[in-house]
């Protein structure tokens, strides 16, 4: 054994002795973690697909290919298509304001953005019922003008937007704060307009975090149950989103169909997780590069 490998060996031993436990304890901890996750996450997930495919592939596919299920899928996609872009734009604007400017009430704004995470989704839905419902503050006026918000698409969209407000903004605020204003100032001194500065300097610097926030926002928008349940009215084929459709089917003891639709939502979650992991990897390497710059 030559000298350098002897030193390397001693280094490893030394590191082992202070930073890790014995092999037995290590294995015990790792197996405990795996067992826990298997029991509480993987088994239920597998059960969804097992239940969904219980009646065979034909019954599984048939569960989607009826008017009510398709309407629920369409409604969920529509709600997400409205809520996610709006919250992406709002998130960028709010993060921009918070990270790049100093103004009175900045802390209040940050707290407001976080509020939907602290409030129970059911209450988020109730707020809109109290505002726009038949007995609500604006109810009589809306009724007079024949505008339907509660138990209709606008209410579902509003409740979804409320619940998903924080996702993009929270992702961007710390990043934009750490990036500072210098690159934007440099762009302006070089003659860029506000729009050119945003499109060519700000947006490229935040794109991965923005995408990450949008994916989380989308997952929540499609999966939201509580707030939407309160404002939807559960009208089949009209105001039922996918999560609500699952509940109705299950309450009707139609387990196969319920689990089949649920498996669609689960697939969405899995796709989200994969996309999230890939983007995290991208942002990590991007941030490393940024740190050096």
């Amino acid at each position, binding site marked *: 054994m030559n000298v350098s490998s002897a030193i390397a060996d001693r280094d490893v031993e030394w590191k082992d002795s202070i930073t890790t436990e014995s092999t037995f304890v290590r294995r015990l901890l790792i197996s405990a973690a795996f067992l826990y996750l298997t029991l509480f996450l993987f088994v239920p997930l597998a059960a969804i697909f097992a239940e969904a495919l219980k009646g065979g592939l034909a019954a599984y596919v048939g569960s989607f290919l009826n008017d009510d299920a398709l309407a629920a899928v369409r409604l969920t996609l529509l709600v997400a298509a409205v809520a996610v872009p709006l919250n992406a734009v709002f998130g960028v604007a709010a993060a921009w304001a918070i990270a790049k400017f100093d103004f009175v009430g900045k802390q209040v704004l940050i707290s407001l953005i976080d509020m939907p995470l602290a409030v129970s989704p059911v209450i988020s839905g109730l707020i809109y019922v109290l505002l726009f419902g038949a007995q609500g503050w604006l109810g009589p006026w809306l009724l007079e003008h024949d505008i339907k918000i509660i138990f209709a698409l606008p209410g579902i969209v509003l409740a979804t937007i409320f619940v998903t407000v924080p996702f993009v903004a929270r992702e961007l605020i710390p990043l934009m704060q750490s990036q500072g204003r210098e*690159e934007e*100032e440099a762009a302006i001194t070089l*003659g860029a307009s506000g729009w050119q500065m945003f499109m*060519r300097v700000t947006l490229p610097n935040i794109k991965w975090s923005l995408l990450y926030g949008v994916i989380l926002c989308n997952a929540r928008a499609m999966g939201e149950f509580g707030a939407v349940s309160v404002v939807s009215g559960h009208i089949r084929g009209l105001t039922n989103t996918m999560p609500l459709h699952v509940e109705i089917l299950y309450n009707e003891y139609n387990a196969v169909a319920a689990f089949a639709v649920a498996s669609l939502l689960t697939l969405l979650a899995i796709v989200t997780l994969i996309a999230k992991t890939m983007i995290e990897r991208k942002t990590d390497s991007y941030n490393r590069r940024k740190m050096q*710059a």
Partner: protein
Amino acid sequence: MSIQVDHVTKRFGAFTVLNDVNLHVQEGELVALLGPSGCGKTTLLRILAGLERPDQGRIFLQGTEVTDQRISERRVGFVFQHYALFRHMTVADNIAFGLTVLPRAQRPSAARIQEKVHDLLGLVHLQAMADRYPSQLSGGQRQRVALARALAVEPKLLLLDEPFGALDAKVRKELRRWLRRLHDNLHVTSILVTHDQEEALEAAHRVVVMHQGNIEQIGTPDEVYENPATPFVYQFLGDVNVFHGRIAHDRILDKEAGEPLSADADASDQREVTFVRPHDLELSLSRTTPTQLEATVQFLITAGARVHLELASKEFSEIIAVELTKERYRELKLQQGDVVFVHPKQLQVFRMPSPLTVKS
């Protein structure tokens, strides 16, 4: 482009960053704004660029008032301390940025932009780095890219905010000489903000010394170094020995070295403070005049071009710093513990309000 700063005041909350500042810079000059951190020099630079607005006062560029003009209309190039390069763009794209954001009618053709970028890369000696990203460059290279990027739009005024502050000493020295040569070739009016007195004295035609939001002195490097207008300038530009009070009057001041103080100047609300630079102190091994100060050599640093000594005297509590040439040091054959007699070749006396009588 000539610059006129007219009674500019800027406050951040209760803190006055710039206090009624006036400054005139001629076309083609390279002026250094020098001062400790917090003296307002960066704020003044940012006001000139249009990145900040003054609370009071006006800014004229080439005789035209620009106080309310937008940054993009001022045609200034700004170089940031931490480079502020666009991290997702290559070096070439960084340099081209200012040209590519021009309105279509004024924008040069793609081939022309490429040609210009190539020329600028040559100017900053980075031809081989065109396709690299900022993170792949050293600090000195990044700052040269930042400078090329600022020059691409052919600014009439170049503003540099501590451009070499984040670099190590050797690179800093190289770059400031290079900057001076570059300026001699381009003649673009430039303002350099720095807290490094050596940098200011070496690079600039004129130095503006700032302190607590005020301009203390404006002059050529020689003027501010040889004839500091205020005690602050004296202390900020190089090492200095400060002697207080009567003993300084009797011991350090003799008729040959400095002008003696007149009797009536010794009023009770004034305090005499004598400033002497370490290299203006002459040492001898025996007493030649009665006023010489007797001191003991406490510490010697002989490495380097000059020899630095620290002397202790019974008459002063503070250490006296002395700088000798190698020749003089060899003549004197000084060692630790030797007794020497100190005599100033040049000094300056300031009268300042006595801290003891400030209350009255």
